[in-house]
């Protein structure tokens, strides 16, 4: 596979860092790929624009940070304003319609998906917004299999919440696939 460099951004509490860890974990533990995950760390990450970098590859990864992502996800306007211009030309920029008004001025495939709205309509709990986003990312990129994400989720999430997460992942996957 081609090396994929991703940046997930949003605001503290939306679960973008958790989503990044789950994706990287799924790739390493269940698909035998190489992955590295890092995150912006510090007082500024609380409440402000938070960011997590993930690199997935089938070879060794030396430099662990992402400078120009192939895939950039922005879940808030602040994160979008801060990060939109780091996207690699020809990359994929995914935003949420409820939170981000994008300006369509970068050289990238831009996808504005109603992830938050769909989660609220079909599930009613904003807590799985990040998992829906993750579904959309793999729906658009086919980076890892849906089952691998589910296996990684099983390791970290209480049983009672598993169905809700499975539904959110499926919703995101559908949104992603439909806008490929």
């Amino acid at each position: 596979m081609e090396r994929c460099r991703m940046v997930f951004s949003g605001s503290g509490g939306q679960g973008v860092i958790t989503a990044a860890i789950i994706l990287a974990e799924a790739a390493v533990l269940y698909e035998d790929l190489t992955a590295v995950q890092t995150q912006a760390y510090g007082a500024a990450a609380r409440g402000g624009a938070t960011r997590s970098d993930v690199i997935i590859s089938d070879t060794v990864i030396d430099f662990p940070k992402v400078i120009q992502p192939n895939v950039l996800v922005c879940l808030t306007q602040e994160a979008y304003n801060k990060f939109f211009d780091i996207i690699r030309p020809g990359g994929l920029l995914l935003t949420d319609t409820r939170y981000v008004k994008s300006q369509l001025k970068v050289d990238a495939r831009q996808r504005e998906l109603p992830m938050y709205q769909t989660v609220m309509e079909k599930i009613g709990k904003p807590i799985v917004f990040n998992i829906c986003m993750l579904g959309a990312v793999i729906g658009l990129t086919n980076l890892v299999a849906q089952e691998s994400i589910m296996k990684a989720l099983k390791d970290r999430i209480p049983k009672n919440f598993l169905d809700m997460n499975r539904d959110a992942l499926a919703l995101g996957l559908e949104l992603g696939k439909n806008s490929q």
Partner: protein
Amino acid sequence: MTRRIKFIQGNEACVEGALYAGLEFFAGYPITPSTEIMEHLSKRLPAIGGKFIQMEDEIASMCAIIGASLTGQKVLTATSGPGFSLKQEALGYAVMAEIPCVIVNVQRGGPSTGVPTHVSQGDVMQARWGTHGDHSLVTLTASNHQDVFAMTVEAFNIAETFRTPVILLFDEVVGHMRERLEIPEPGEIPIVNRLRTAVHDGVDYHPYLPREDGRLPMSDFGGVHRYNVTGLVHDMWGFPSDNPKIIHGLLRHLVDKIENNASHIAMYKTFYLEDADTVLVSFGSAARSALHIVKSLRKRGEKIGLLELQTLWPFPADIVRRYCNKASYTVVVEMNMGQVCQMVKTAVDHRERVFLANRIDGVFITPTDIKNILRLIKGRGV
């Protein structure tokens, strides 16, 4: 299969390594960016019958591990720069009293409380010379989780072999980054356990009389032998002495037991050095950026390689000399103002061929930063 493969932070890889090496006792005080080591050990150690204590501060933590080590336990503490400063007095005591112990310093920006959440490699000289007096000790580092694990195991082995404090000098990037770790099977990495005295109860035991090979068999404190332990210069019974012969003999022993074994303790990795005319020397997380740029410049046909140091102290001067002496350019990549660069300059014949590629602004040095500095050094501009 999945149980032995983990996707975790570097700090957790250190925990796994310590447990693999037989850690039994941890005392510490939480500090960014080392806290995860303490957090994970607070759950893991009690589960296997070990002891975990959160002490009132870093000084007490260092003192607690010294005491615990004397009673026969394998011990660890973890901290960052400000805490490492506080530990220096007790660290010197551990050197003098020859107490096996492992101290992790996950480096952040300094001096003082500095930049808690940002990366730095500014504690290299402090690790060596933070405590006063002529002495020697061992400092190891690592750039990826597999090596963090291996170096942690090695740190315990060296501490037990030479009865010395060993410092693990990691940094914020390696500590917090998540990547794959494959935990070796038990026995895959050899474990050195403590050399205990064969002297029976009631027979005169000399706690500070080295064997011919320089090693000192220990007796668990509070066990069968009564003996004295002090930070003062001491004789073979452990009692204070100001006899010039004893002072001289002890200082020589403390330094020689490490320095005479420097070649055994020297661990390093080489990448593309066979024909390299430009040699990068790096360690810790900075070595990842260095390796990245080496691989990318190699693809363009440049004769560049990397020497990654894993042992920082005793400084592996022979190794550095072997790989750098013939190079037209030796470039030390580190996130400080040239602490290892100074040492590299003393190891080679032509110090004017040694350059520094660094960043000291709390931002992780990138391959592009190194590439730009290389171009400047070679007079090609940026």
